[in-house]
């Protein structure tokens, strides 16, 4: 079903020597493991990872790396990536996005279907998977459209698309306005065990808004988007999930009330997950400053209280995963007056570094972070990554948690440079990224 053979990856290092990373701190939430130990990679798979990994000795001919002071984590699984291929290759391709991903520690990208053309036909899923196999250095699994053309009207061939390799169904940046359409889609998808991911926004309530509604918007003289644009849609969806018993994922949430809604829904036993973007975890509306259009996002950056509530939701498991919402936009779409600029920011390369701010601040622990960035999205989407257990594919990253650096926008590997973290200072970065045992990124 997927591109899982090691030979599919264009690793920078083509050798298949065993690899031993010794003395590193290993964080693997899939096994409740957080301990200093050794990771052994043989034939593209994890042979052992943990304090006792060297019981079998060092494999013959292995490359041995000193992991002291470093962390080894399962590769990140980013569940919301807009690639722009097909249709807008000048913004980003599978090749360029995957190099940015590898640099950021992302070993699996889940791509969004609202491209040109929209990925709403099994032949197009097949196209995405072939292009990714031929050009990307990390794994790519597409989400297919939920409705034809992402127009919110007719549902797609969920069964045939799933058979073709679609891991979930979403209209990407768009919401399904019709409750009847969403109900039928949830009902139909359930027959296939298919997951529906939804951008929760009532577009009539969001209207022409471009920032969070409130004092800040008023001061800037910009039309606001009320939090209710998100919470009303999310509440509606929770009712429909209860009615249909479907599988549901809120693609991004941004408000304190959304966390409450999700907490209640989970308490009722609904099959619901939710994600938050790295921008909404680490930035608030005030960071927009003087109309910085690279911070124009959908949903908009919210107030500090919302950000804190979302972090709490992440810490207590109400919010399940963190996504980059990587959305390449070029000068043509971003160098406009704020209200006329496109939404979206790139985020693959800064995903882990930005998330580490929360760890360094003591807001969440390593295990929670890795679960949200790798273990949980892999499990929810039915992928075999997100773990370092023996036998799993050797998708892993080596991280130096202390190294300080400043983001140079021009040095981003993404074809589009619309980062909200221009000149931002980070602590910690990905030193090495392996996909199926092959090194696809090495720092310096």
């Amino acid at each position, binding site marked *: 079903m997927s591109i899982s053979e090691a030979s599919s990856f264009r690793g920078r290092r083509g050798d298949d020597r065993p690899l031993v990373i010794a003395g590193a701190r290993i964080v693997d939430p899939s096994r409740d493991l957080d301990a200093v130990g050794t990771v052994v990679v043989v034939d593209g798979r994890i042979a052992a990872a943990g304090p006792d990994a060297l019981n079998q000795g060092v494999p013959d001919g292995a490359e041995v790396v000193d992991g002291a002071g470093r962390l080894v984590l399962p590769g990140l699984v980013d569940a919301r990536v807009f690639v722009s291929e097909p249709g807008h290759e000048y913004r980003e391709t599978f090749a360029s996005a995957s190099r940015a991903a590898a640099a950021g520690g992302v070993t699996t990208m889940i791509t969004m279907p609202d491209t040109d053309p929209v990925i709403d036909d099994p032949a197009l899923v097949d196209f995405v998977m072939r292009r990714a196999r031929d050009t990307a250095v990390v794994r790519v699994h597409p989400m297919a459209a939920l*409705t*034809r053309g992402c127009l919110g*009207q*007719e*549902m*797609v*061939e*969920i*069964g*045939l698309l799933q058979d073709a390799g679609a891991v979930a169904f979403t209209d990407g940046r768009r919401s399904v306005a019709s409750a009847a359409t969403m109900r*039928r889609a949830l*009902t*139909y998808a*359930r*027959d296939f065990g298919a997951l529906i991911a939804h951008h929760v926004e009532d577009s009539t309530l969001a209207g022409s808004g471009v920032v969070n509604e409130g004092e800040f918007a008023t001061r800037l003289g910009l039309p606001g988007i009320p939090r209710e644009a998100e919470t009303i849609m999310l509440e509606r969806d929770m009712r429909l999930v209860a009615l*249909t018993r479907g599988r549901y994922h809120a693609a991004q949430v941004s408000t304190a009330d959304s966390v409450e809604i999700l907490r209640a829904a989970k308490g009722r036993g609904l099959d619901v997950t939710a994600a938050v973007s790295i921008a909404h975890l680490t930035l608030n509306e005030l960071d927009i400053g003087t109309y910085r259009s690279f911070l124009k996002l959908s949903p908009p950056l919210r107030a500090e209280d919302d950000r804190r509530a979302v972090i709490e939701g992440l810490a207590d498991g109400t919010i399940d995963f963190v996504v980059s919402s990587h959305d390449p936009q070029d000068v043509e779409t971003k160098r406009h007056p704020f209200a006329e600029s496109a939404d979206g920011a790139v985020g693959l390369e800064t995903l882990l570094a930005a998330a580490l701010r929360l760890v360094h601040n003591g807001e969440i622990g390593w295990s929670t972070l890795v679960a949200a960035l790798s273990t949980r999205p892999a499990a929810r989407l039915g992928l075999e990554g997100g773990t370092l257990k023996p036998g799993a594919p050797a998708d892993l990253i080596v991280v130096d948690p202390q190294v300080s650096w400043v983001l140079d926008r021009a040095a981003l590997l993404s074809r589009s440079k619309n980062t909200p973290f221009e000149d931002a200072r980070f602590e910690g970065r990905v030193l090495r990224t392996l996909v199926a045992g092959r090194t696809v990124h090495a720092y310096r």
Partner: protein
Amino acid sequence: MISPETSARAPFAHKHLLGIEDLAPDEIVALIDRAEAQIEVSRQVEKKRTVLRGRTQINLFFEASTRTQSSFEIAGKRLGADVMNMSVASSSVKKGETLIDTATTLNAMHPDILVVRHHAAGAVHLLARKVSCSVVNAGDGAHEHPTQALLDALTIRRHKGTIRGLTVAICGDVAHSRVARSNIIALNALGARVRVIGPSTLMPRGIERLGVDVFTDMRRGLADCDIVMMLRLQRERMAGAFVPSVREYFHFWGLDQEKLGHAKPDALVMHPGPMNRGVEIDPEVADGPQSLIAEQVEMGVAVRMAVLETLAEHLPNA
């Protein structure tokens, strides 16, 4: 007017045949028994009988139908009735009031039996309250189609000997099907185990309370079935509203030889018609050795003769 083969039976306590739900199990069996005796009539050169001589039967079809209407027409004529067909274009009919006006008008012509099909559930019941003759429901909305269930039961019994203990799967658009509802009631009354199979978008809420096991996976649902009844999928349901496309529907729920292989080796295939070949059923199966589809049409005439004869016996002036 009492023919020898029916003389021993209990009186039929109904003026109308509006739905299977009004019938007791022994009444269903009695109608099927009587239909069994009518089969030979249609197979002879001399098909004409006289039990309905002098009677007037009006077929009032508010919804287009070829096979049901002609089947009722032939049944009435073979029993000697004067049969008149009234096809009312549904666009010219404006619901309740006009329906009652139509009933009043027809009633003034003193028909003995009115055979009615209407696109709205309950319309036939409404009409039955307004006329003095007997009314036969030839299909009302997604509610009931009692003669279809009777002819299906007759067809099954002729091949399997009995209906009791059989496992029958009704597959496809259950939500919009009057055939499914009538068959669920009839087959349960006759002792079959009934399953419904189809996408959840085509399963009405609460269907499991009607005495069926619900399956969404065709292969699992067909396992160990004796009878596979396919339902027609209306064109307007196919384009993304209830199912995404014809090709996806056929792939997962269309009956082909491979899926049929999950049922019992001697399983039989039925379809109320008209078929959408390549949508709900593969032509190979529809025309194959396990298909009873052509025979269902023959049994349709026999069942309708039995129904008309039974109702005529209980007309007040009989």
